Each structure stands twice: as structure tokens, then as C-alpha cells.
């Protein structure tokens, strides 16, 4: 797990530039740095040594010197691939997974991607064809960004490396801001930075003879809603799922350093930890974050699971004030505004892992997308159920059952419940049906956009763009699969795996591994009948069935508690921190021009005086504060550089 940067084209003083770009992402790879420069291309690499500790230096060339790679991530099936290649006469000089990609590319060209089971982003220079291939893993675990400047393509694991390129500046993309304040994340390839794109998950980019092309090598697909189920019985499906998940964990335990595990106290990370513990004779190390407020804390479940597994368990407490303290640093790593503070405790958690001397952790992330764990899936089902009988005064009570952890909702009348969830809005043909209430509630925070920003965005609708990005087959899928696609294809890579995932872990040089996102498991789950995933209103049914014997009943039977952290209240506590006051001052808000300064002042005042804030006010507060921090972390550096020049 590492970071890399590079270019294709002509660069003045390439050595210095690559040094600067690599230094900007040194937190991703503190163990070693390396460079490769030839006429017309360059690669820089910052290495976190996990596999092939002594001989995996990068950028790495093959024995002919014609192929050179800079690689971030892991190829988990590299042992099997290396055995296959050896059987075909290939000789290996190192014990690393990096070299396996070089050989596989030499044999198969860009089709080698179909053989890789892993979380990866890489740049591979083929001197024979003078061509650069950039590729990113199927689900978007590892990041890869790029931009063009004066005819040269620059790329890097994080945008902060691209900002080292002379003339590349940080300017907020207003469309991206609108997408974040609607969908929670920009729609890739767009990023928060104007003129800087990301390579989308499951895609590869070829740069050859001055031409750039991007193509899809893998995409998430679901069967036609009327197709007969490929698996007849639940028992059979559970058995296959257990075997696949066990193998996914087994492959992800491969490392030349110890592998630990996050343990949230929920079903998914408990299951992964249970499987991993069975493969760690010396005892698994597990890590959790705890909260002061009972509303967010899951430590009783974490302790129960750690005791049941006999793991060496460590926790970090997220106390009042901690989120506010680390938030500026969090935004420097997310590199985008966010509307929730949830990444901040994960930033603390990866710090705990680092202090414990580990570099690699397994997590349960991905199970909610793959096996339909999120409330939004159940909510869509209840909304359809209500819409069939709009006059019912009984059916909307189900919304209370879905959100037992939201006290404000428990107190609402049936009529309000129905109205808030749009329960009587029958729109079965709306491709975004499942997510409309979430998008609508989040969009309400745009009331704080300035007049100028609203004018810039006039006529733009982020949900229209999202609907326009759906594949042709989408309309033929079962509604649950449609909702899963929206989560898996957009929010997962755009927020969960990036702002909460890679960025928070790599801020402390920690590699997260995600067994539930093994593509074999993802493809298997996509084929399952929807009722095996969401049975009535019981989420991840088949996963519970497959894992029944591995977990204590209290963990196994738990209803999902979404991972959340205190939002606007996290910044109020014992008075504003200086940076919060400065970021939200009328003068600075007005100067940056993105938000209505007077309205923001009223919001700040309201959040300071009210004990509880609603979703809209929380999202707006965190979104505005993080946008202002983004401006200070990135855009103002650019302004200063311009002024100095």
C-alpha cells in the first residue's frame, strides 16, 4: 500500500517535480521513495512495505527494462498468479505482488486486469510502445486522479501531489459542490477540484502517441428482475457465501507484516474478525472507536465480540471536542467538502492502529452495499408498501421501526411520517426512487448557497445527472438491486471508500482491506434473489444465515446501527475553536463567495444555542465548515503561490 505520482509528456526538471509530488503523499508510503524517468514519462513512488519487504522497491521494472510500474494497493491472488506464470516459464526476481502485474501485463496486455483480485491503482509504462496504462480496481478502493497541463498528463494517488505541478491550482468546482450538497459526493470523474478528474472504478486509461482513451474493464451488473434465480435454495446460497467470504478473508490475511481488524460491534466487522481470528494462531489484534454519547457508542458490543474471539483489543475514545480538534486535518486528507463528521473518528482510529505498530487492518466495509444492509433499502420497501394504500394510518408506523435511533422521528404523527418519507408518492418508474428522500433532505442545505453560486448553478440538477449516468439495463433490474447499484457505484467509492476509507487510513499510513468487496463475492451477491438479501425488513439475511455459528446471538441478531458521529454539536461544546470562528465569520464567508454570510451566521448561532439540530442544519453546518476549510487548505495556497509569482 503506497502512493504514486507521474506524468506522460514533457516536463521541465522532472526529477525535482517527481520528488515534490511524491513528498506530498509521503504519508501513504513512509518506508521508501523511488523515481523512474525516461524521455516523455516519469513515475514517483512512496512505499509502505507490506509484501516483499526487502525486494519490492518501486517503481519496479521487468528484467528487460521495457516495462515499469508504480503501484498502490495489493493483488491478493498474486501467489496463485505467480505459480501460473512460473508454470509457463516466467522467472521472478522478487517475492512481491508488484512483479506479478508486470509479468501478467507482458503476457496479456491490458486484459491482465481481469485476472487481478485486489485493491489497486497503478501506472505502467510500456517503453516498447511508449505507452502509459493507468488502472483502478473494480470497486474504487484505491484512488487515482489526473489532470492535463500544457499537453502533459499528470496523475497521482492524491490531488495534493497534482497541486505541485506548476500552473495546476485548486479551485472549487461549483457543480461538484452542488453534487456533494445533494448526493454526499461528487459524481466521478468529477472531483471537488475544477479541471482535476479521478479515474473511475473498474476503468483503465491508455495514453499513447499523444492520445488518451478510457475504457471500462469491469462493471457491476444484476440479473433481469424476471430472470430465474441461479441458486435454488437458501442453504446452498449460504454455504457458497461462507466459502467465498472465508476465502476472501484468507487472501486478505496475506502480508509479510501482522494484519489486524477493525471491530465496530456490528455484524460485518464481527464476522470478518471472527474469520480472521481463526486464521491468526498468535492472536488477532482488533481496534474500535468509542463515543461518550450512548446514541453513537457501541462499545458494549465491541467488548462482547472481542471477548468471544479472545482478541487483543484496543480502543480509542472519541471525546467531546476531538472531532473539532482533528477536523481541519481530516479535510486536508478527504480533499473534498463533506456533510458529515463521520470520517473524523476513523482518522483517530487509524492513528490508534499506527501507534500499535500495525500497517494493515481488515474492515467490514462493503457488506451493507453488497448484502443490502442500509436503512435506505428498507425505507424504499416501506415507501412502496405505503404507496399501495395511501389512506392507511397503520403502514407509516413502520418508519419508526426503521429508525429507532432517531428520537425526533419517534415523536412524529403518522401523517408527518408519511409526509417526510414521501410515503404516498408512487413513482415506480423513477430510477432514483429509493434515494429521493435522502437527496431531497440533503439538498435542503443548499438554502445557504450564495446568490452568485445559485446563479452559476441555475438549471443544473445533480439528480438528473446521476439518473443520466445509469446503465441501460438498470430499468430491468429489481428495485432492491437498483438501490444497491446507486449505493455501490456512487456513494461507496465517492464517500465510504474515499472520505471514510482510504483517506482516513492512509493519513496514518494504514492499509484497509475489505473482504466483502472481493469481486467474486460482489458478483455472487448481485446474482442472489433480492429476498435472500433483504427478507421482509431483515437486512443481510443470507449473511446472517451463512455466519450463524461464528457470532454470539446478541451480535448476530442485532439490527444494523448505522455508523454515525456527532455533527454540528461536535463543534459547540466548550465554545468555538478559533478556526471555526474564522472559517464561519461573515467577512470570510462573504469573501469566499460560496455561501450567504448572514444566513450562515444565523445557522451558527442556532446550532450553538439549540441542544439538538435537525438533519438539514447538521449537514449544512458540516458542509459549509468543511468547504471553508477546503478553501483554506487548498485554494488559498494556490492564491498565495499566484501572488508570489
Amino acid at each position, binding site marked *: 500500500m503506497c502512493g504514486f505520482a507521474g506524468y506522460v509528456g514533457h516536463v521541465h526538471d522532472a526529477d525535482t517535480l517527481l520528488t515534490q509530488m511524491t513528498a506530498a503523499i509521503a504519508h501513504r508510503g513512509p518506508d521508501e521513495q523511488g523515481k523512474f524517468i525516461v524521455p516523455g514519462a516519469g513515475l514517483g513512488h512512496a512505499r509502505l512495505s507490506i509484501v516483499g519487504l526487502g525486494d519490492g522497491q518501486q517503481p519496479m521494472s521487468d528484467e528487460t527494462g521495457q516495462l515499469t510500474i508504480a503501484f498502490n494497493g495489493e493483488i491478493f491472488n498474486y501467489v496463485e498468479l505467480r505459480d501460473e506464470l512460473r508454470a509457463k516459464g516466467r522467472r521472478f526476481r522478487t517475492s512481491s505482488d508488484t512483479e506479478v502485474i508486470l509479468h501478467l501485463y507482458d503476457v496479456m496486455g491490458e486484459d491482465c486486469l481481469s485476472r487481478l483480485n485486489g485493491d489497486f491503482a497503478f501506472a505502467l509504462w510500456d517503453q516498447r510502445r511508449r505507452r502509459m496504462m493507468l488502472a483502478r480496481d473494480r470497486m474504487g478502493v484505491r484512488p487515482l486522479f489526473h489532470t492535463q497541463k500544457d499537453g502533459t498528463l499528470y496523475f497521482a494517488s492524491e490531488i495534493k501531489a497534482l497541486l505541485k505541478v506548476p500552473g495546476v491550482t485548486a479551485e472549487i468546482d461549483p457543480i461538484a459542490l452542488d453534487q456533494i450538497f445533494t448526493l454526499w459526493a461528487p459524481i466521478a470523474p468529477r472531483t471537488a477540484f475544477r479541471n482535476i478528474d479521478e479515474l473511475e472504478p473498474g476503468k483503465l486509461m491508455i495514453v499513447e502517441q499523444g492520445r488518451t482513451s478510457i475504457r471500462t474493464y469491469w462493471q457491476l451488473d444484476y440479473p433481469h428482475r424476471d430472470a430465474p434465480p441461479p441458486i435454488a435454495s437458501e442453504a446452498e446460497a449460504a454455504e457458497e457465501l461462507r466459502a467465498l467470504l472465508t476465502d476472501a478473508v484468507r487472501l486478505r490475511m496475506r502480508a509479510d507484516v501482522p494484519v489486524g481488524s477493525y471491530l465496530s460491534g456490528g455484524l460485518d466487522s464481527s464476522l470478518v474478525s471472527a474469520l480472521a481470528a481463526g486464521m491468526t494462531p498468535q492472536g488477532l489484534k482488533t481496534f474500535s472507536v468509542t463515543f461518550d454519547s450512548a446514541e453513537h457508542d457501541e462499545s458494549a458490543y465491541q467488548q462482547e465480540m472481542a471477548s468471544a474471539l479472545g482478541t487483543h483489543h484496543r480502543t480509542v475514545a472519541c471525546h467531546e471536542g476531538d472531532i473539532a480538534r482533528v477536523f481541519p486535518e481530516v479535510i486536508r486528507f478527504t480533499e473534498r467538502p463533506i456533510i458529515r463528521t463521520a470520517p473524523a473518528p476513523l482518522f483517530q482510529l487509524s492513528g490508534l492502529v499506527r501507534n500499535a505498530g500495525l500497517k494493515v487492518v481488515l474492515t467490514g466495509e462493503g457488506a451493507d452495499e453488497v448484502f443490502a444492509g442500509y436503512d435506505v433499502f428498507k425505507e424504499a420497501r416501506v415507501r412502496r408498501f405505503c404507496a399501495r394504500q395511501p389512506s392507511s394510518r397503520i403502514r407509516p408506523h413502520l418508519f419508526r421501526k426503521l429508525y429507532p435511533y432517531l428520537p425526533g422521528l419517534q*415523536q412524529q*404523527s403518522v401523517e408527518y411520517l408519511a409526509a417526510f418519507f414521501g410515503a404516498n408518492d408512487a413513482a415506480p418508474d423513477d430510477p432514483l426512487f429509493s434515494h429521493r428522500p435522502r437527496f431531497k*433532505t440533503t439538498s435542503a442545505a443548499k438554502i445557504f448557497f450564495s446568490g452568485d453560486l445559485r446563479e452559476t448553478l441555475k438549471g443544473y440538477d445533480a439528480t438528473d445527472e446521476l439518473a443520466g449516468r445509469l446503465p441501460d439495463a438498470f430499468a430491468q433490474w429489481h428495485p432492491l438491486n437498483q438501490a444497491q447499484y446507486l449505493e455501490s457505484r456512487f456513494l461507496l467509492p465517492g464517500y465510504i471508500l474515499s472520505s471514510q476509507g482510504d483517506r482516513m487510513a492512509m493519513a496514518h499510513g494504514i492499509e484497509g482491506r475489505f473482504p466483502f468487496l472481493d469481486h467474486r463475492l460482489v458478483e455472487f451477491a448481485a446474482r442472489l434473489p433480492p429476498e435472500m438479501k433483504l427478507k421482509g425488513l431483515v437486512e443481510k439475511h443470507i449473511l446472517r444465515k451463512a455466519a450463524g455459528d461464528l457470532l454470539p446471538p446478541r451480535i448476530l441478531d442485532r439490527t444494523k446501527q448505522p455508523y454515525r458521529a456527532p455533527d454540528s454539536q461536535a463543534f459547540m461544546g466548550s465554545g468555538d475553536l478559533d478556526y471555526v470562528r474564522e472559517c464561519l465569520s461573515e467577512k470570510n464567508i462573504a469573501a469566499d463567495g460560496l455561501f450567504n454570510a448572514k444566513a450562515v451566521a*444565523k445557522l451558527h448561532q442556532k446550532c450553538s444555542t439549540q441542544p439538538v439540530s*435537525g438533519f*438539514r*442544519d447538521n449537514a449544512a453546518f458540516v458542509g459549509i465548515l468543511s468547504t471553508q476549510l477546503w478553501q483554506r487548505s487548498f485554494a488559498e495556497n494556490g492564491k498565495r503561490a499566484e501572488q508570489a509569482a
Partner: protein
Amino acid sequence: MAETVKDKVRNFIVENFLFGDTSYQLADDASLIENDIIDSTAVLELVAFIEDNFGITMSDADIVPANLDSLARISSFIETRAGSVAA
């Protein structure tokens, strides 16, 4: 001219839910939910405002969109209830 019930309610909504945005054209019969002006927490803020300012105690059965989902409905509810209290 004396401030009407509707004026008081409008001012409360503009200040607390629209954060002073007077450019927002809040029609008397516009749905507060449909137009993303209130969420579940804001409904409870609205109830507190009515109780604190108009001497009305709202029962759970009163807290429904039919009474509270537009400026006109809120004003009408307050006037009816305040009138019955005065009588």
C-alpha cells in the same frame, strides 16, 4: 399597523428555517415539507414557537400536516385555537 398572526409566523419561519432569506417567496399555501423548509426536528421547533407565543397547548393529535404544513394552515390553526381559548 399591528403584526398579524400570519406575520408573526412568517417571520419565525423566515428567521429560523430560511435563516433570514427574505428573497424566498414563501406563498401562504406552499407546503413546508414539499419545499424542504422543515424536517422532523423543525416540526418540534414550530410547535414550541406556537405554544410559547400564542398560549396554546398542542396535543399529539394537533401535530399533523393538516394543521402545520403551510403558513395559511398554521395561521388558521392558531387563530381558531386562540379564539376558542379566549372564548
